[in-house]
Structure formats: structure tokens, C-alpha cells
């Protein structure tokens, strides 16, 4: 039982920066969280908060000119000889064969754009078979049978025919299902879904979320769900990480984060969303200002210029650390912990 509480993936103080001609963009600036088997970790935040770069960092596929500058990503593998294996993904080269054997096999990715996340000139089957045979010793025949099986598993009607279809012949919802089938081809233990339903309609979104949930129930994999939609997070996640401008501002169990949110950003964000249950036509509490451009990130706490609880001299001078405020509930805000002695 003890082992069950061990996370399959631990991210510690991850920092990923992009070194562009215009300057350094600290896309992810110290993110720490854990993902457990059979659970869904939701990462939520608005544009530019670094949620997608976090996913790419875990897979070691951050595009140039970006790279991981600091931090640790630990993957716990299936116990072998009774001893769980821990691999530091950050110590592997991005294009090393170990890293490649983990990508797709242990950790799979479902990307946001179902339109363009599949090659337009290869059949669905071809792409799934290609991915499956990368990590599993399968004959073409076996791989093709597997592809049909996966396609019907994700709910694509007439899967035998669908493996010969090209992506443009499928609707957005079916394409997203095909993409999930591709991600499942090597039976990953962690599925990273980056905005998997953003481009879809509400009713199709409901179908896909339902599919992800039932898949998780069936094979017990861990899901890391990245989205900007608080509703999707509330619906799906067990644990939540809220990010703002590359930093984790709050994390904890979904009920705690939504019910007793502590960080002013999380609080304001939740209050500013109209809900079909809230009173109509009232003035929504808003967050003033706009998200700063990543090149001009404010000093100190990145949220301080928009923060209703801004403490002058503190929030604009010191970077808050992520610290516990309760059971598994972490917040990075000076309202809850003391200002560090040494000025940074």
C-alpha cells in the first residue's frame, strides 16, 4: 500500500527558458508537482503561463531556442525485482535512446489541435502502427490488429475501415479519438493531454472527457490534463496545479483548490468566471489589467501588479516560494508565509 502513494512522476523546481534574440523568456519558472497512477492531475492557467512548455519539458521535446535550465523530473518505472526504478529524465539526453524509449511507451502525449496533430498524408492506421512498432516487438499484422483494437476502444465506429482513412476524412471529434488511440498504442502509464478539447464543441468535449475517464478506469494510467478551462479541471482532476506566468501559484486536491482557494489569483480567476449557476447580469469581479508580455515579466511575485492584496515593498521585491497551507495544499504567496530575510 505504501508503494501506491509513490508518485509515478515527480517534477521538482522545473525551470525551462527560451533564449530568443529579444531576450530570455522564462516560460516555466520553478514548477513542482507529482502525478499518481490512476489519478488525474490538472494543470490550469491562462495563455503564457507555461503549462504546455511544462508538458514538453517532461517529454524532453522543448523546441529550440528553449531548454530546461534547472530542476528534476523523476519517473518511477514498474517495479523490477521488487525494486521500483527511478529515472531522472532531466539527466537523459533529449535525443538519447533511453529518452526515446520512454517517450510514447511510458509517457504519451495528446496534443491540442486534432486538425493538425496527425500527418495529413498518412493513414490513421499507418501512424498508429508506426508508433506501436517503435516500442513493441510486433509484426505488421499484429500491429495492424492492435490499431483496429485501439480505434474501437476509443469509440471510432467501423474501426477496420478507419485505419485506412486519412485524418481529413474524419471529423474533429473522431480525429481527437484517433489521436488518443495513437497515444495509447504502447500502453503508457502517464498520458499528458494538452488542451485535448479546446478546439472541440461542448457536446464533443463531453464525449472526449468521458472517454478519457473511462480509459483511466480501465487501465489505471495517470493523466496530466492541461487546460485553461476551470470547468474541465473541476470536472476531471483529482489534483490541481494553478500556474501564472511560468510559476505554480497554488496546488492541491481539486476540492480544496476550488473550495478554499488561497492565492489571490486563483480566487479572482474563479470569481471572474460566469457560471450557469450564478446570478445573471451581475458585475463580475475581475482581475485588473492584462497578462504581461513574457519579455517584461514583473519582478517579485509575477502577479503583484494585478493583485488585489498586493503588499508594497514585499511582493514586488521578493519571489514567494510554494509552501504548505494545509493538507497537501500549497500556495506561493506572502499573505500566508513570512517574507524571506535575505533580499533577492
Amino acid at each position: 500500500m505504501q508503494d501506491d502513494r509513490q508518485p509515478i512522476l515527480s517534477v521538482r523546481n522545473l525551470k525551462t527558458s527560451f533564449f530568443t534574440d529579444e531576450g530570455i523568456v522564462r516560460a516555466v519558472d520553478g514548477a513542482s508537482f507529482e502525478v499518481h497512477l490512476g489519478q488525474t492531475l490538472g494543470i490550469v492557467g491562462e495563455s503564457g503561463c507555461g503549462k504546455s512548455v511544462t508538458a514538453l519539458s517532461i517529454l524532453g521535446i522543448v523546441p529550440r531556442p528553449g531548454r530546461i535550465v534547472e530542476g528534476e523530473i523523476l519517473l518511477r518505472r514498474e517495479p523490477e525485482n521488487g525494486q521500483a526504478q527511478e529515472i531522472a529524465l532531466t539527466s537523459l539526453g533529449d535525443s538519447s535512446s533511453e529518452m526515446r524509449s520512454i517517450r510514447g511507451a511510458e509517457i504519451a502525449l495528446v496534443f491540442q489541435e486534432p486538425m493538425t496533430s496527425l500527418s495529413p498524408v498518412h493513414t490513421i492506421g499507418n501512424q498508429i502502427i508506426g508508433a506501436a512498432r517503435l516500442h513493441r516487438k510486433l509484426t505488421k499484422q499484429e500491429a495492424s490488429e492492435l490499431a483496429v483494437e485501439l480505434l474501437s476502444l476509443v469509440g471510432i465506429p467501423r474501426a477496420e475501415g478507419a485505419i485506412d482513412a486519412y485524418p481529413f476524412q474524419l471529423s474533429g471529434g473522431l480525429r481527437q479519438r484517433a489521436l488518443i488511440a495513437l497515444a495509447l498504442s504502447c500502453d503508457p502509464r502517464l498520458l499528458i493531454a494538452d488542451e485535448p478539447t479546446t478546439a472541440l464543441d461542448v457536446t464533443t468535449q463531453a464525449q472526449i472527457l468521458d472517454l478519457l475517464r473511462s480509459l483511466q478506469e480501465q487501465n489505471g494510467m495517470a493523466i496530466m490534463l492541461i487546460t485553461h478551462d476551470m470547468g474541465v479541471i473541476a470536472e476531471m482532476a483529482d489534483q490541481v496545479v494553478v500556474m501564472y506566468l511560468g510559476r505554480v501559484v497554488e496546488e492541491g486536491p481539486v476540492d480544496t483548490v476550488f473550495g478554499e482557494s488561497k492565492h489571490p489569483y486563483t480566487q479572482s480567476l474563479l470569481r471572474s468566471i460566469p457560471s450557469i449557476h450564478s446570478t445573471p447580469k451581475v458585475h463580475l469581479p475581475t482581475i485588473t489589467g492584462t497578462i504581461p508580455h513574457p519579455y517584461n515579466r514583473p519582478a517579485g511575485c509575477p502577479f503583484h501588479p494585478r493583485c488585489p492584496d498586493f503588499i508594497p515593498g514585499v511582493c514586488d521585491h521578493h519571489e514567494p516560494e510554494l509552501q504548505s497551507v494545509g493538507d497537501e495544499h500549497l500556495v506561493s504567496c506572502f499573505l500566508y508565509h513570512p517574507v524571506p530575510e535575505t533580499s533577492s
Partner: protein
Amino acid sequence: MLAYAARRLVLAIFTLWTVTVLSFIIIQLPPGDFVDAYMAQLSATQSNVSEQHFESLRRQYALDRPMYVQYLKWMSGVFSGDFGTSMMWRKSVLDVIGDRLAMTMVLSLGAIILTWAIALPIGIYSAVRQYSIGDYVFTFIGFIGLGVPSFLLALVLMYLGFTLFDSDIGGLFSPEYQLEPWSWGKVKDLLYHLPLPAIIIGLSGTAELIRVMRANLLDELRKPYVITARAAGMSERSLVLKYPVRVALNPFASTVGYLLPYILSGSVIVSVVLGLPTLGPLLLGSLVAQDMFLAGTIVMMLGALTVIGTFLSDLLLMWIDPRIRFEMVQ
């Protein structure tokens, strides 16, 4: 798919027709008619040609009838293999052209194949290694290729060949095969001589294609499906070759459409400089001598070659691009 092919075919036929009209206009452009020019030419050399002969010629080409009748007359001749008479050579145009048409095709095809063979790998390399030294070098060479007109390149290479190696790089055959009938030896000799003119003709096209391929591939490399494949654990090399290169090939294949007119244009002028036995020098000679049936026929043949080539490349594109095969063209 058939609808697409039919559409391209109709367009090709229509273009072909326009080519014949343009060629006919070129035949008609010089002042005076063919027989006037013929008379002038004959009287300069010999004087004892009867008036009846000219009259019958006039009737043969319907020169006394309206323009469209003349065109129809010429076209009906073309369909039965009679392209008219070359007055410079005093024999039928088809005889004058002989196997020069075939030579032109061989040379152009060679140029296209070389162009592709060079542009494709360099384009891929430049895109994958964007902003590397190699990319800069190839980009620079590409620009030179765009900047240097092919006939100047031919001249310069000829000069270098002459001064450095003391050899004449012109021609498609060694002197000993020049007048020989076709044999294996002659074919080998042709293959030996072919690459240099083909490269010269293809250079600017190659430069253009490198740019096209590089740009296409750079676009594709940014697409999410590349991330999907990368996240599936594919190695960078097989990933690039399997997906984005394959996708980028489609617009690349459709470049034949403009590459071919480009290459045939280049082949005409380079052939003149290098003295190759293709249609080029013949066209120039016939135009200078105002031998208009010959000139018009050559222009028409070159036009027809491009139209047919473009049509074939359209079919090729249709075959390789499933989006067209399944009629999903926007």
C-alpha cells in the same frame, strides 16, 4: 479524383490550343507572307523559279484566304504530321527537326532529374539545420544560382574548360559519335556529356527549388503532428523523413508545373551557347532567317512539351496526395 484529372486534362487541352494559336501568330508576325519571303530568298540565290510554283504554294497554305482559314489549314496539316515547309532548309519542317525534339526532351528530363536530386536533399538539410553554417552556405549558393543567368554560366564554364582543361565542353557527343547512327556507345557518350549542360540549365531552377523545399519543410516542421511523432518516441531522423518531408513533397511535386517552362526556356538559350543538337539553336536560326513555319513549329513543340509535362506532374501529384485523391481540394 477523376473529376480532378478531367479538369486538368481540359485545361491542358485548352492550353495546348492556345499554344498553337500563339505559334501561328508568331508565324504570321513578320511582315509579308511566307511565299513573299520564300520568293525573296529564292531570287537571291537562283532566279529560274516559275510564278506557278509560288501560286501553288500560296494555294497550299491558303494565303489568299482569311486568317482563320490559314490557321485551320495549318492545324489540319499538323494533325496529319505536316508542319509546313522550312524555306531555309527547303524540306519539310519535320525532317529538319529530326531527332532534335527527342534530344531536347532528354536534356530537359535530365535537367529536371538533376534539379530534384540536388534540390531535395539540400532543401531538407537546410530546413532541418536552419541557421547552421551549411544552411548559410547553401542559401548563398542558391542565391548565386538565382542571380547567374544560365547562358552566362555556360559561357564562363566554357571559358574555364578551355583555359584550365583545354577542352571544349560544348556539344552532347564526342566528335567521333557526332554523325554515327545510334549505338550503345553513342548512348553512353551521350550520358557522359549530358550532366554538365543539364546542371547549367537546371541551376537557377535548383536554387529556386531549394528555397521552396526549405520553406515548405520549415512550415511542416512547426506543425503539431511533428510534436506528436516526437512525443511517440521516434528518432529525429526517421521522424523528419517519414512525416514532414513526405508532406512537404506534395507542393514540391507540383513545382514541375513551373519548373518545366523554366527549364525549356533555359535549354533553348544554353543550347545556343553550347551548340547542343536540340531545338534551341534551330529556333534561333529559323527566327534570324525568318523561316517562320520552322520557328512556329518549334515554339509549338516546346509549348506542347510543357503542357504535357505539367499535366503529367498534375497526375503525379494526384497520385501522391491523398487529399486530392479523395477530392478534398479547397
